[in-house]
């Protein structure tokens, strides 16, 4: 109980710090959205449009920063993240709402698959050392050392093209409307295969390795020897005793690494033109779209926080030692 309270306090503090940081950082960014818009339309927005855009974005008003900070909190507490510049006047929350499902769907699910698969292989590698899974390690290490985006681009070059099963970009076929039907779902899945495979290939080795190492460490614990001595079946010893315990450190590692994953998959989304959050963030940075930047950053931070909180709860459930009341 105490543990959870403490963690909650920590999460609130972190959330506050992140939100504050979030507020100040874009304000330090020089340049402004209008110019970015012009540069995007090299030469095709007239000089006279600059003023109209400034008026549009409300950039001509000046307020002191403290007041802005308070307004920002006021807005946040009303669930209002402001209006995006890039997609003016679409609210940031709508933009995020549109891209979040894709990120969660692709990155989220793939990350979980990567974690589960990597952990399972790691259990195998750690338990039966010297087996084929162990032999896989050097190869996966090499693959995971390749930058995401490079792997993705090469995959596109190699696997896509006219007549190929794999589409080169996008989350679904053009002309389809997102809906749960027999046309859209297969298309969405088809489009996610390559990016998902890229993420899998480059992120899995981390899990395999850490799980393998934990398995090796746990395998030499006395209680494993005792489990063997008890004559339990190999499966039971491996899963219920060794893997169960080896999993514990990986759970919190998993939550913490979510932050890294979001950063990394940003690139996958860019490369595969996948309409997710990472790509939006990249665009927002490029277009100086502070409200969108802030919104996405906030969402990412909060989801990492929530993941951590969940990991804490999972840890609490998995490890009775932390549960003492």
């Amino acid at each position, binding site marked *: 109980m105490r543990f959870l309270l403490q963690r909650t306090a920590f999460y609130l503090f972190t959330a506050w710090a992140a939100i504050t940081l979030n507020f100040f950082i874009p304000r330090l*960014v020089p340049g402004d959205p209008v*110019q*970015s818009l012009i540069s995007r339309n090299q030469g095709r927005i007239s000089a006279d449009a600059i*003023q109209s855009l400034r*008026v549009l974005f409300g950039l001509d008003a000046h307020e002191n920063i403290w007041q802005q900070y308070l307004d920002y909190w006021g807005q946040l507490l009303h669930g209002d993240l402001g209006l995006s510049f890039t997609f*003016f006047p679409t609210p940031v929350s709508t933009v995020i709402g*549109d891209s979040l499902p894709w990120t969660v769907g692709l990155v989220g699910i793939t990350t979980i698959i990567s974690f589960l698969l990597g952990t399972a292989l790691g259990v195998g590698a750690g338990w039966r050392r010297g087996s084929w899974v162990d032999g896989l390690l050097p190869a996966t290490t090499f693959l995971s050392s390749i930058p995401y985006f490079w792997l993705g681009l090469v995959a596109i070059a190699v696997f896509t093209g006219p007549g190929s099963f794999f589409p080169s970009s996008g989350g679904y076929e053009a002309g389809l409307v997102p809906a749960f*039907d027999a046309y859209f779902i297969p298309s969405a899945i088809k489009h996610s295969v390559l990016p998902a495979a890229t993420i899998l290939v480059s992120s899995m080795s981390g899990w395999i390795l850490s799980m393998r190492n934990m398995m090796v460490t746990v395998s030499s614990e006395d209680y494993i020897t005792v489990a063997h001595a008890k004559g339990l079946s190999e499966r039971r010893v491996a899963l219920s005793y060794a893997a169960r315990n080896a999993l514990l450190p990986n759970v919190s590692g998993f939550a913490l690494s979510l932050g890294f994953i979001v950063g990394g998959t940003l690139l996958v989304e860019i490369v595969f033109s996948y309409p997710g959050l990472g790509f939006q963030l990249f665009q927002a940075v490029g277009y100086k779209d502070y409200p969108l930047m802030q919104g996405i950053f906030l969402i990412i931070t909060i989801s990492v926080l929530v993941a951590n909180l969940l990991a804490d709860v999972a840890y609490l459930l998995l490890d009775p030692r932390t549960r003492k009341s």
Partner: protein
Amino acid sequence: GDSPNANKKNGQAATVLNIGMPNGPQAENNNPFLTTSAAASLGYRWQIYEPLMMWNPVKPADPFKPWLATKAEWSSDYTSVKVTIRDNATWSDGQKVTAEDVAFTYNLVKKYPALNDQGVPYTDATASGNDVTIKMESPQFVNQQKVLWRVPIVPKHIWEKISDPTTDTVKQPVGSGPYTLKSFTPASMTLSVRDKGYWQDPPKVKELRYTSYTDNSAQTTALANGESEWSFVFIPNYQAVFVAKDQEHHKVWAPAILGIHGLYLNTTKKPFDDPALRRAMNMVIDRADIFTTAEAGYFHPQVKSVTGLPSPAGDSFVAPEFKGQEHKVDVEGAKALLTGAGYKLDGNTLKDKSGKPVTVKLTDPAGWSDYQTSLEIVKDNLSKIGIAATVDKANQDAWFRNVEQGNFEATFRWTEGGATPYDIYRTIMDGRQLKPIGTASPAGNFGRFNNKAATDALVAYANATDDAARTTAMNTLQKIFVEQMPMIPVGADNIGGAYSTKNWTGWPDDANPYGAMQPTQPNALDVVLHLKPANG
């Protein structure tokens, strides 16, 4: 079933046109006035809303083509225009398009500066019968197309109910064009043709599918493999990457418009304040090399005329004395010119009159790869006359600021474009925009070019009430430009596109340049109306 995707398969080749733009995911926003809307970004606003007149940027001097208005009459000083609205047009909800609607639209733009993306100083619009009189504060001879061609006409009965038209995303756009919005997703939008009520023959294309690809490379790939049939995107080595993929059908058309790109020189910095040096530099810069190497041989059509006016769009404006005079690389000529002006070529180093070596720092934003490549070529070219150039890859924001504030030596940049060469010369030489170094001059004259005659000619051209005065002013501008060379012109803006004739023919091309081809221009509607099924 009732799935929105159910009929997806039966829309085959001859009914659908796939249009792509490399603009990233979009948010649902069909407000035709906002540059930030998906409708503007991808260009489908012009398939739904129509302008009063159609103008052809490829042949800017050609007369305007009647569209929603059957005719337009400018007052002699170009401060007001009287348009007559066609009486057979209807909105897609069935109501008639009236002069009231048009007047309402112009008053709306006037009332909300945020919607006035062309910055035309409207004062008033009044309807009477089928006519609308639109009044402007100042003469708009050079901005005619901004008034008649760039303003989408919207229905009053809908827009008067919109409380804030600057933030409304117009979920169900109702326009006078032949298409209505069928579906919207962040990456793709579908427009379907209206059943009835369009004022001219309905288009053959039953459905327009817009896809917003995340970047140039994705768009190019889509073009290459036929997913996209029409787009505007920079394709490096387009012959190999795009055309070669389907020699018969994949085509690129990139006509120049009256807007150019070139090397701005800071005329306040020594020794670049010397026109002789600037002209010598112009003489060695290999525009053709830049065109083929940096611009993939098509993207910024080479500006050949010494006046900096692109061809053919600018041909009719070229002064008699410069007609047919094309820029040629002439290293020896440049050297002679320099020696004549007191410079010394000391081995591989050019020394100025005071004996200091001439060096120049070329800057452009890091990510703009065609500009960067251009600078590399310029650097190479300048070395031929002993100028040591360095290429600086700047941060984009810093670059914008520095260029506007005059903190640069030489930079590649564009000029504004318009219906006449006025916008080109204004961007380069307008003394009214002259600001001290350190103060931003966002509208132009980045090189701080200070020439009263040029400014006077610009003012005269914009305010002139007769063609003779305009011609005089234009000739003066060209003469000053050629003699002073405040900016070295290299290429022009193109307003074309990459397209496929596999399913649709009738695209504009050199043989029939009936309009701009970029899918985001108002002409896009005209283009679609020209299309015919390839096998039908």
